[in-house]
Structures are given as structure tokens and as C-alpha cells.
């Protein structure tokens, strides 16, 4: 097991613990982004707790805000969030809700939770960076279901028109949305081709393969003067056999037995 794989395993376990302790939903969509977050935070993003307000830092926006348990687990391991703050997840009078609120001290760049907002905010940040001739990059993680939103496509047009090659969108293509399969509800395919036709340069990767993810992140922008889109093919509920590809785990919080089983599978 590589260093990154070990980190991903720990993050998945931390995410499970957070969700179970908080009796929170969204374990499935949190598990599908674990490797994406690990590759970004432990290998690619230029950010650290001591520099969380530096103008030169890279920005990360979790546009699919409902998956924030995994993000909180990462931010805790990176030292942005203390154990005490983490304990306030999903608690009355606590600290961290089921969708993130901007708090630079905690490493959270934007308040999200309503789908179809994060990419526009990221495009605004990317435009500001271009105007200021700064070199940092803006990464935005969306869900595939989220791209049903028309606002996403407004931003897709805008970002290529303005040549925002400092903007990187990653779509967690786990093929499931709130009520079923994306291909049954509102078909998105051919997905990467749609983005290319909107003027983006695209890469398709296995979203659980850390090597492929790091490789893709290190190569952005894939083409000068074009925004980059990484289509990450993932599995919702990844890492726990009975959760994988099941809509149920968008909502359900594991009970004690399920938690123990999940824990064993994650830790191997």
C-alpha cells in the first residue's frame, strides 16, 4: 500500500466515524470523493493551515456540499480543523453542519449545499486571479447529478469564453443521483464530449485510482487558454461492498452492525 492509499483508507474510516457519530446522511457521496480529495490535499493543492488566507494559495470549492463529511475528515488530518471542532459535526449547538459554511481558518473557501453554485464562484475567483496576474489555481468538485442545473452550463460557456485555464472542474461521476441512476433520470452522456463542445479540455480518469488522479491534477491546464475538466468515474459508497452503487446510502446512516462491517472492510 502506498502512502496515499494509506491516507485514503484512514480518511474513509474517519468519514465513517464522523457520519455514524453524527447520525448524518450522505455517506455514499462522501465515500465516492475520498480519493479525489486525498490526491488534491496531500499531493497537489498549494494550501496549508498557516497560509489559509494567503492570496497565492490554491482554492478548492466543494460544490457538491453534501459530501462535506469527507472534506472535514481531510481538513482535520491536514490540521485545518481541530479535534474539538470535528466533534461538533452534526450536533445541536455544534460547529460543522451537513453542508459547509465558508470559514478560511478551517480551510473552507465557500458556503455550498445548493447545487449549481460552486462552479460560478470558482469562475469568478479564476477571473480575479487572471486580472491580478496571479498564478494560483481554482479547483471545483461537482457531482454528476449537479450538472443537471442550468447554471453549471452558463458557467461552462463563461469559463471557456474567458480562457480561464486556471480553473479546474472535477466531476464525481458516480452515476447515481438522489432518486436513481443519472442515465434513467436525465442522461448526461456523452459527458466529456459535452464539455469539450463547450470549449473545455477534458480528461477521463478512474476516480478511485490515486495515481491517475495525481497525474491528471499535475497536468492541468491540459491545454493553454482552456479550462480543464476531469471526469472522475467513481462508485457511490466506494469501499464498503453493501453500500456501493446503492441510492439508499445517499440517505441512510449505518447502524451499529453495519458500521462494524463497514469498518472491517475499510481497514481490510
Amino acid at each position: 500500500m502506498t502512502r496515499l492509499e494509506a491516507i485514503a483508507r484512514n480518511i474513509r474510516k474517519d468519514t465513517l466515524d464522523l457520519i455514524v457519530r453524527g447520525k448524518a446522511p450522505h455517506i455514499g457521496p462522501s465515500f465516492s470523493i475520498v480519493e479525489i480529495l486525498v490526491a488534491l490535499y496531500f499531493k497537489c493543492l498549494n494550501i496549508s493551515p498557516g497560509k489559509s488566507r494567503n492570496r497565492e494559495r490554491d482554492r478548492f470549492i466543494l460544490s457538491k456540499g453534501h459530501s462535506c463529511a469527507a472534506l472535514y475528515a481531510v481538513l482535520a488530518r491536514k490540521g485545518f480543523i481541530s479535534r474539538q471542532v470535528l466533534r461538533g459535526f452534526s450536533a445541536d449547538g455544534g460547529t460543522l453542519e451537513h453542508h459547509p459554511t465558508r470559514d478560511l481558518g478551517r480551510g473552507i473557501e465557500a458556503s455550498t449545499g445548493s447545487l449549481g453554485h460552486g462552479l460560478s464562484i470558482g469562475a469568478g475567483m479564476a477571473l480575479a486571479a487572471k486580472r491580478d496576474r496571479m498564478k494560483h489555481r481554482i479547483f471545483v468538485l461537482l457531482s454528476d447529478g449537479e450538472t443537471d442545473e442550468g447554471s453549471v452550463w452558463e458557467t461552462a460557456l463563461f469559463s471557456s469564453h474567458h480562457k480561464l485555464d486556471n480553473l479546474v472542474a472535477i466531476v464525481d461521476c458516480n452515476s447515481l443521483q438522489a432518486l436513481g441512476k443519472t442515465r434513467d433520470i436525465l442522461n448526461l452522456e456523452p459527458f466529456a464530449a459535452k464539455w469539450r463542445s463547450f470549449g473545455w479540455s477534458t480528461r477521463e480518469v478512474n476516480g478511485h485510482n490515486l495515481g491517475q488522479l495525481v497525474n491528471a491534477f499535475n497536468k492541468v491546464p491540459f491545454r493553454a487558454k482552456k479550462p480543464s475538466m476531469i471526469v472522475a468515474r467513481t462508485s457511490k459508497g466506494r469501499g464498503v461492498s453493501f453500500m456501493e452503487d446503492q441510492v439508499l446510502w445517499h440517505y441512510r446512516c449505518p447502524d451499529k452492525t453495519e458500521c462494524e462491517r463497514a469498518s472491517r472492510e475499510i481497514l481490510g
Partner: protein
Amino acid sequence: MRGTFIRTLEKMAKADKNIFLLTADLGYKLFDNFRDNYPDRFVNVGVAESNMIGVAAGLALSGKNVYCYSMVPFLTMRTFEQIRVDLCYHNLGVKLVGVGGGLVYGLEGMTHQAIEDISIMRSLPNMTVTAPGDPAEVECLIEESVRYKGPLYIRLGKDRDPVVHETAPDFKIGRGIVLKRGKKAVLFAAGNVLPAAKAAVEALEENGLSITLVSMHTIKPIDKKLVIECARRTKAVFTVEEHSLIGGLGSAVAEIIAESGEKVIFRRIALPDAYSKYMGSSGYLRKKYGLTPQAIANRITKELKKK
């Protein structure tokens, strides 16, 4: 008003390099100077208002001072949830400049008329809601807006709005401007109805009814102190606006009066809670809906006679 808006903003943008102007493909010829002088700080985002608000938020989170321009309905209603989450929840100092408040775009029809915007914007936490009454107020407001904290909605008329203030008004966001003192009643006016309100008050004066006239250019936060003071002095309170009866200036003043314990006559002069059943220019629609100087004066006279 919009000419004054852009001339003032150009002046401010010369001194403040952080000022950005975004438009959703509206304002023909209006922005040519701004675009030519500050090409890096002007963006026509296309007919995509929701994205405009998100981009404005991203710019503001990067330290920019952003003004967004469109017609009132597209600026405030198409984009409502972006305004709510991206601007209000983050409490960003983005300015929303809407052209065509009320019946300004009369003949364009329902889609372009704006009778619900003040109500909608007023409901948002952190949002400040303004409707300047004439170009002089617009100039003061834009100057003050540059350093204003938090999201700010600016409801403009359009072109050729008459000047009401002959000298520079004593303008401050959140404070009403008393244009004239009178004892029989107070009339609070918001937005481009101010010239009609002033003419109405002058007509009443000629008939021996002396009325206090206030330009209530800020509807939120409303100047509570001034409302109560005027109510106490005159015992008869009227509001006038080119907006639906629901949720605008009339509602804001009513909330204060109701809780103040003052026993006063209170009447709202506004548009009904309905889309216009008439078709016509703004002038025609104002006649139909009782928003001309004569109709406003008649209404006040009638209500005061009942006293």
C-alpha cells in the same frame, strides 16, 4: 437615473481599481466609456444572470468591489437563490443595480415590469434595499455604495427621471430625507415615484393641506426613528411607491407603525397585488393605477376628510 449611475461609477472606478462592472448583456451604449476606460474591469457575461451573481461572488471573495447590472426582474428574480446563498449568506459587498423599477417598462409588458422586487429583496438577511428618488440621490448613493459593507440592492428608474433635489441632498443609506415639513400628514415615498409625490404635496399645499414629504430611499434598514417621529407629529401616515401593496415601503412602514402604539391614520398608495390588467406606457399605467400627482393628492385629501 441610469445615466447618473454610470457616470458616477466611472468617476469612482477611476480612483478605485477594485471596482468591477458586470452586465448580463443589457445597457445598450450605456457602458461604452466604462468598457473603453477600464476594459479589464468590465465584463458582459452574456444573457446568463445566475452565473453573473456567482461570478460576482467569486470576484468579491477575491477582494473585488463588484456592481451587477440588469433589468430588475432578471437581476433579482431569475437569480434569487444565487443572491441568497452566494451574496447574502457570504455577506459580500456586491451591488445589484436594477433598471426599470415599477412600471418604467410599461409597454414591454408583465415580464419587464417590476412590482415584487422590493418585497423579495427585503426578505433576505444581510441585504440592504434602496430605491433612490431622483438622479441626485442616485449620485449620492453610488458614491456611498463603494465603501458600503454587505450586499446592496439599488432599484433605479430609467432615463429622463426628473431632478427633485435642487441642491445636493443630505443623503445617507438608512436615513430618510425630509423634503418638506407639514402638520396634517406625512407622505413617505420610495423610488421613482418621488417626483409625483412632490407634485402631489405641492398641490395639497395650494389647497391648504400642509404635508410632510419624506424620500425614503432606503427601505431596508428602514429609518424607524423618522417614521415614528413623523407619525407622532402628524397623526396621519401615507406611503407611496411603484410596487405591489405586499412587502414594499408600505409594508415596512406599517410594521413600524403597528408596533409603535401610535394611533394614526395609515394608508398605502401602491399597485394592487395583481399583474396589470391594462396595457400601456408607464405614464398611462400610472394614471390607471392612481399614481399621478393628482390621484395621490386626491387620495390623501379623501382619507384625511374621514378623520
